[in-house]
């Protein structure tokens, strides 16, 4: 087990290093000079050269790469070109929006998707099943941003129950902060609920056909009791995998929703930084995303291995 965890950890570190190198190289190849972007088209070549010097853009690529990598070990992600502020702080502030937003979306997704999937499986082939699956399919097909705009029109413009966008910082008013995340959370979470409902239904239908449910029925449990006590628990495994994937997907996929609701999240930060060629900031934010996703995978792998000894042997993987 220790050896297994160690191997996984080495793989994790290697992935990060390769990702860092790829991110750096790709961004370095992008056309566009950050200094010219900041100073605009009427600035003299001299002013642009001065700024390039100030930003350290003239150093050779390998020096800049190692400098960046070494800095990250001490938590120093560099200073943003355009905003002239530490990258670490800029990203940290944005995580305070993106992480809670993702969490709310996942809670909504699970709270709506799981019961819907269970109900559909239990009424398989009947009207509730068909209706749930059609609605779920619709939820998957509708784009987040469009759904978000419909929600704004109804709840913010017409009913005026919730703010149309923007974000009140947590330290100012927790309730207001939660309210500003409600509509974007729904816009992100409901389409995910559609996916979850379908997965839950399929998993449960698969499980109910298996021997241990028949055994449970033979022991005298009703069909409902057998499904609740044994079926749902077993069907949850594939569902948890999907939830893990959704977390990674949502963290990286909030860009559009953050734009529609003008939320100061990580997605919007990266979006602006790319268009302004704020390469230090893009690099820092991207590596944080890679870190979040690979760490989730590392934790999932080790947790699975703890539960299922077969995975540690190497025969399965």
């Amino acid at each position, binding site marked *: 087990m220790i050896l297994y965890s160690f191997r996984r950890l080495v793989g994790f570190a290697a992935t990060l290093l390769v990702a860092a190198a790829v991110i750096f190289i790709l961004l370095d190849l992008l056309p566009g000079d950050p200094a010219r972007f900041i100073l605009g088209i009427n600035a003299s070549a001299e002013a642009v050269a001065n700024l390039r010097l100030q930003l350290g853009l003239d150093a050779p690529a390998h020096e800049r790469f190692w400098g960046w990598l070494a800095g990250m070990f001490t938590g120093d992600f560099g200073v943003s070109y355009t905003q002239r502020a530490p990258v670490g702080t800029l990203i940290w502030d944005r995580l305070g929006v993106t992480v809670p937003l993702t969490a709310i979306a996942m809670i909504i997704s699970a709270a709506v998707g799981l019961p819907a999937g269970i109900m559909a499986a239990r009424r398989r082939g009947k009207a509730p099943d068909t209706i749930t699956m059609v609605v779920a399919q619709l939820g998957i097909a509708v784009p987040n941003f469009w759904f978000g705009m419909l929600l704004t029109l109804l709840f913010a*413009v017409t009913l005026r129950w919730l703010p149309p966008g923007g974000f009140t910082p947590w330290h100012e008013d927790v309730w207001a902060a939660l309210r500003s995340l409600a509509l974007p959370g729904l816009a992100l979470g409901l389409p995910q609920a559609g996916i979850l409902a379908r997965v839950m239904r399929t998993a449960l239908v698969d499980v109910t056909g298996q021997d241990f449910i028949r055994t449970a029925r033979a022991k005298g449990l009703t069909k409902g009791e057998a499904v609740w006590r044994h079926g749902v628990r077993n069907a949850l495994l594939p569902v948890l995998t999907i939830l893990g994937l959704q977390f990674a997907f949502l963290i990286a996929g909030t860009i559009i929703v953050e734009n529609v609701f003008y939320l100061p999240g990580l997605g919007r930060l990266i979006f602006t930084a790319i268009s302004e060629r704020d390469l230090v900031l893009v690099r820092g934010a991207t590596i944080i995303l890679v870190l979040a996703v690979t760490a989730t995978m590392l934790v999932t792998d080790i947790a699975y291995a703890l539960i299922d000894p077969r995975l540690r042997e190497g025969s399965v993987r």
Partner: protein
Amino acid sequence: MAKTTQLFGLILSLGLALTSAALAQPSEIRIGVALEPPMLDPTAGAAEAIDVVTYQNIFEGLVRIDQDGAVQPGLAQDWTISEDGLTYTFELASDVTFHDGSTFDAEDVKFTFDRILASDSINAQKALYEPIEAVEVIDPQTVEFTLSRPDGLFLFNLGRGDAVIVAPESAENNAAEPIGTGPFAFIQWDRGSRVVLERYEPYWGELPALTKASFVFIGDTATLTNALLAGDIDGTNNFAAEALPIFEANPQFKVLVGTTEGETVLATNNAREPFNDVRVRQAIAHAIDREEIIEGATYGYGEPIGSHFAPHHPYYVDLTETYPHDPDAARRLLTEAGYPEGFIATLKLPPVAYAGLSGQIIASQLAEVGIRLELVNMEWAQWLEDVFTNKDYDFTIVAHVEPFDIGIYADPDYYFGYDNPEFQALVEELNATTDEELRRELAVEAQTILAEDAVNGYLFELAQTGVWNAKLEGMWQNAPIEGVVLRDIRWVE
């Protein structure tokens, strides 16, 4: 007894809450703007968004530009100009303090301009202040500028965001915590979300009516529309033209349509074949139908131009009929130039709505005379590198928003690739002239040369289209300079 006190307390707090809400609302404003400034120091970057928030609100210059583009006294209350136009003596306002409490005097003016002109300066408009030879402190209230040559635009340039007065104690931190002398002090910046300003009570001039202003950053047009309709923001200075009808029909809003300094041109690479042939450029000018472009790309908001000059400027002459829309004439000129079948060229488009839409219309207009355009969409950073810096382009569409920037045509290294010694001499003379009548004549001549040479395809002057709560007054209708000036804005019933 306890119950009565409780009830009384409840009524009192409710009453307080209601009255404070009633009192607070009319002196605060929330303004939606599309772009967030990357930082808040107008002397260290060219982004328009910086000036939108800070210009004349947080920071002030020696002079200020008013709504009509005229120069008004600012921190300099009065000035005298020597006979030869080389010495400017400014009398500074008294009792002026920076928002951190430090006092303003002539030393701050000298510091500001020495900083702009320093060899390691990163001021985006340093070139405009190059005529300054020396800045001398006469006494704390008097400062003298010596120029190396007369400069007709000197006072106007002092009124730009790039020349606002900063203090040696705070200049370094202005990017994140701007400290100026203006009527509003910086309070907080929730990055990605908003910047909050508050009225600066010890302000030396007349206090504005607003006590608080927030600039809220909303990039998406549909979202901005919803925020206005939901009452989340009170207005925006420049809104997408296609959505204006929603607000024109709504009595809760007023739409202010004004002019800007943005000359939108079909920029042409004059250094490249076949555009180095004036007949080809004339053919393009004949092929363009401005009315159709304005209708399609800006929904009718925008004024046709025939040269690189803003129609509201006193020196403007209408040259839109230099090459009237005439596809036959265009084909004739192309045949004369040796392209009877036309040719293929690329049109590189920056990521702004007016460029994308104009590009499609122009492509179909030029196709009528045989010029087939390949449209290439680009990000700003890529556009700046490919088109602006490397001059690797045939055509592009962009609005040049600097005030009075006809001088860019006198630089043969500018991305237009236009090299005309006669024009260069003319601009040199114009720059060195302070006599109004003579300046006007020279400016008219310069406009005419550009129109006749058809250096670029001259399309239209961008309009400023503001949408505001109908109960607001005092917003600028025009944008002679970048900025959302809060000074005169107030709520009325």
